[in-house]
């Protein structure tokens, strides 16, 4: 069965420091991997996706993610965190072209000034 794990409930970083939000996945075929961000009382916003090709994917708001097939990971990164990046981040996986997203439990990112 497909699954996604976000091992950290919360990540705390200082503004200006690099950030990493971790995600590992388990699928039996070719994964489509996504990151979404959710601000309070709002829907999810798409950040980036990996389908095929270059393992380093660049997305919105300066975020990027690295696909690592051997470690089955898709960690979200940003070189320099902003206070406005504070939000709830979700990793998700779908199998090939099914469109059925399986979401992780979410990681709260807190960026302090």
């Amino acid at each position, binding site marked *: 069965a497909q699954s*996604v794990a976000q091992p950290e409930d919360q990540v705390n970083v200082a503004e200006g420091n690099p950030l990493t939000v971790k995600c590992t996945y388990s699928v039996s075929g070719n994964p*489509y991997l*996504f990151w*979404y961000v959710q601000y309070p*009382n*709002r*829907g*999810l*916003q*798409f950040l980036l*996706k990996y*389908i095929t090709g270059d393992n380093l994917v660049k997305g919105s708001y300066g975020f990027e993610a690295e696909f690592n097939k051997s470690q089955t990971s898709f960690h979200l990164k940003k070189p320099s965190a902003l206070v406005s990046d504070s939000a709830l981040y*979700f990793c*998700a996986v779908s199998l090939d*072209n*099914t*469109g*059925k*997203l399986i*979401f*992780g*439990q*979410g990681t709260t990112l807190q960026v302090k000034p």
Partner: protein
Amino acid sequence: EAGVVQSPRYKIIEKKQPVAFWCNPISGHNTLYWYLQNLGQGPELLIRYENEEAVDDSQLPKDRFSAERLKGVDSTLKIQPAELGDSAVYLCASSLDARDEQFFGPGTRLTVL
């Protein structure tokens, strides 16, 4: 470009009452999704439409939940009768097709008393 529109944003009802949620996807998006998001968790797919056809409703509790997308554009999700455990946020999303990123609406927060 307008995003995914959902109404109402908030709904409070008593248990055993019926409730309905409406969603208008992004223009031109053939695929429409309804998700349920419980507090502190990632969204869970309830049903996915390709145009008018429900292609994945395996997670929809069919004894009380129903959905329709009659003309392949907007969609309605209904619960009858509502139970206390149905209190959650109901999210609608759309995409060009099943392989593309999904765009989410703001959600409807349902409280069942």
